[in-house]
C-alpha cells in the first residue's frame, strides 16, 4: 500500500510518521517547506510527547516526484486545500483521497480534482517544534467515511485499518458527517472567541456571559446540521465543558488564538464561514456565526493596515 500525506504540519506529521512504521506501507510526505522536507529525508520525522516515534517517510516538495498512490491524506490548513490537491491530484487517479482537515468544504474542494474522496475528522493534535520534529500533544480518534457513492466503503475500511495498526485509532463509517459537524461546531463556537478575547478555553467557558454566547453559536451550528439531516455523534456542549476542565484543556490557547497572535491567516472561513454558507443553502439564519466570521476577518485585515 502506498500513502501520500499532503501537508505535513503537526497533524500530517502524526499520520506520516506513524504510518511509515508499518510493514508493507510506503509513505510519502508532500510539503512545500523545503527545510522540513530536507530534514525529514536526512534524519527521519520525529514525534515526541504523547508518543515517541521516528518515522521515515519519503519527503518531497516536488509533486512531480510522487508515484501513483492508493491513498492520499490531506492535512494542510483549509485555505491551502485547493492548490495542494491541484498539484498532487495526478498521484491519486487510481486511489482515494481523505481529508483530516478542520472545517467545512474541504471534501468539496478535493472532489473537484479527484474521483474518490474520503471525509475524515481527526482529534489528535500537536505542534511543529522545528523542521522534522513534532510535539504530539494529545492522542485521539479519527473517523473516516465515503464522501459520496463513488468511494467504496471497503477502501475507507482499508485506510482506517492501516491507521489503527499504526497507532492512530480510526474507524470507517457510512456517514462521517456527524463527527465532522460536532468538531466543526465545537471549533467554530470556541476558537474565535479565544481569538477575539485572548482568553484560554477554560477562561472562556467559566465566564457565564461568554459561555452563553458560545451556546448561541452552538445552537446555530446544530440547526444547520439538523437541516441537512446530520445527526451529531455527541453534543458539542459536552465536549466544550469537558475540555474546560483543569486536567483537560483549561489552559489551552485555541489554534485560532495562536494564529492571531502570530498574525497568520485563520481558518474562520471554513469554520464559522462554513456554517454560514451551509446555513444559507438551507435557509437557516446564522447571525452570530456571521458576526464572528466578520470580526475575525477584520482582525486579519488589521494586519495589512498601517
Amino acid at each position, binding site marked *: 500500500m502506498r500513502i501520500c500525506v499532503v501537508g505535513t504540519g503537526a497533524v500530517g506529521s502524526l499520520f506520516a510518521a506513524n504510518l511509515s512504521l508499518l510493514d508493507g506501507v510506503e509513505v510519502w510526505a508532500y510539503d512545500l517547506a523545503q527545510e522540513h522536507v530536507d530534514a525529514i529525508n536526512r534524519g527521519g520525522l520525529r514525534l515526541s510527547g504523547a508518543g515517541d516515534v521516528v518515522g521515515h517517510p519519503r519527503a518531497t516538495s516536488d509533486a512531480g516526484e510522487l508515484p501513483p498512490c492508493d491513498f492520499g491524506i490531506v492535512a494542510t490548513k483549509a485555505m491551502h486545500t485547493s492548490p495542494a490537491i491541484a498539484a498532487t491530484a495526478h498521484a491519486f487517479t487510481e486511489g482515494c483521497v481523505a481529508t483530516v482537515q478542520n472545517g467545512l468544504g474541504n471534501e468539496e474542494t478535493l472532489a473537484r480534482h479527484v474521483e474518490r474522496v474520503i471525509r475524515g475528522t481527526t482529534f489528535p493534535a500537536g505542534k511543529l517544534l522545528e523542521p522534522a520534529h513534532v510535539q504530539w500533544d494529545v492522542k485521539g480518534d479519527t473517523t473516516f467515511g465515503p464522501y459520496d457513492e463513488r468511494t467504496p466503503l471497503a477502501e475507507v475500511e482499508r485506510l482506517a485499518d492501516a491507521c489503527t495498526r499504526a497507532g492512530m485509532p480510526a474507524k470507517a463509517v457510512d456517514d462521517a458527517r456527524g463527527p465532522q459537524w460536532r468538531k466543526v461546531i465545537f471549533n467554530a463556537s470556541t476558537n474565535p*472567541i479565544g481569538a477575539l478575547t485572548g482568553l484560554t478555553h477554560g477562561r472562556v467557558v467559566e465566564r457565564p456571559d*461568554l459561555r452563553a454566547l458560545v451556546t448561541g453559536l452552538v445552537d446555530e451550528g446544530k440547526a444547520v446540521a439538523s437541516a441537512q439531516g446530520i445527526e451529531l455523534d455527541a453534543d458539542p456542549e459536552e465536549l466544550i465543558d469537558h475540555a474546560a476542565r483543569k486536567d483537560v484543556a483549561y489552559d489551552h490557547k485555541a489554534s485560532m488564538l495562536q494564529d492571531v497572535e502570530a498574525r497568520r491567516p485563520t481558518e474562520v472561513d471554513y469554520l464559522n464561514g462554513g456554517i454560514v454558507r451551509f446555513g*444559507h443553502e438551507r435557509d437557516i439564519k446564522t*447571525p*452570530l456565526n456571521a*458576526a*464572528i466570521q466578520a*470580526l475575525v476577518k*477584520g482582525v486579519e485585515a*488589521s494586519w495589512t493596515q498601517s
Partner: protein
Amino acid sequence: MTKVVVAGAGSIGSLLAAHLSRVADVTVLTRREEHAAALREQGLRVSGRSDFTTELGATADAAELPSDAELAILACKGTDLEPLAALLEGALPGARVMTIQNGLGAEEVVAAHGEWPLLSAVTFMSGTRHGDAHVEYVLDTATWIGPYRGTTHEDARRVAELIEAGGLKAKAFPDLRPAQWSKLIFNATVNGVAALTGLPHDFHFAQTEQLSDLGHLVRDLVDEGRAVAVASGVELHDDPWEMNVLATQRGHRHFPSMLEDVEAHRPTEVESINGALVREAERHGVPVPLQTAVYRLVKAREASYSE
C-alpha cells in the same frame, strides 16, 4: 471674563480648555500634579486645525479651584467620572456642570454628588495628546449641548456660544437625547468592532461587497441600536449608519478610544457605551443579540489583561 473649570485634560479636555482660555478665565483640574505644573509653566499648545499656545490656570488639587466658577466641564473618560464627581462634592457652588462623556448615564453619576444645574454634551471632535502641554486638534466636528437638570435651552446656547467664540464648533439643542443616542449607537458599534478587530475606523466598516464583509455586521449592529432607540421613545438626530459611512469617507483613519484602550491594556468605556445600550434594550425587551455579543467580547478582552 467668565470663569470656567475644565476637569480632566485628556485630548477632549485639553482642546476645550485651550480654546476656551482665549475667551474665558480657565482653570484645568488634572489628576497628576506634574501635568498641572507643565500647563502652568509651559501653557498649552494646540497644533493641527488650530495653531496657538495659550496660558491657563492648572491644579491637581480640587480645593484650589475657583469657588466662583460659572461653568465646569467634566471632560474625563467615563471610567473616571465617578471618582471625579465625588472629588467635586461641595465644590463649585455657583457653577453649571456639563458632562461630555461617551455613552449614557454620565449626568446621573454627577447628579448623585451635588445640586449643580447640569448640562449634557456629546462631542464629535477629536484630538491627540502629544504630551502634557501639547494637543493636536484632529477632527473639527461639533460639540452638541442640551439642558439636563435645572438648565434651559438658553443655558445650553450660552455655553455653545462661548465654545464657538473660543474657536471650536458647538451647537445647542432643546433636548440632547436624539443626538446623544445617535452617538451612543455609533460608538457602541464602531468602537466595539474596532476594539475587537484592531482596525481603526476605516473603509472596512462600510464595506458590504462580500457576505463576510464587516459592513454587514456594522449595519446589523446599528439596526439593533435603532430598535432600542425606538423602544426608548427617542427619535435619532442622525442615522448612525450614515455617520459611519461619512466618517469612513473622510479618508482619515480614526483610532477610536476603545481600540487605543485595549491596545494599551487600559479599562475601556464599554460599560457606559455598550453596556448602557444592552441594558436599555433589556429594559424595553428588545432583542439585541449582536450588540450583546460585542459587549461580552469586549468585556472578556478587558478581562484577559486585567485579571
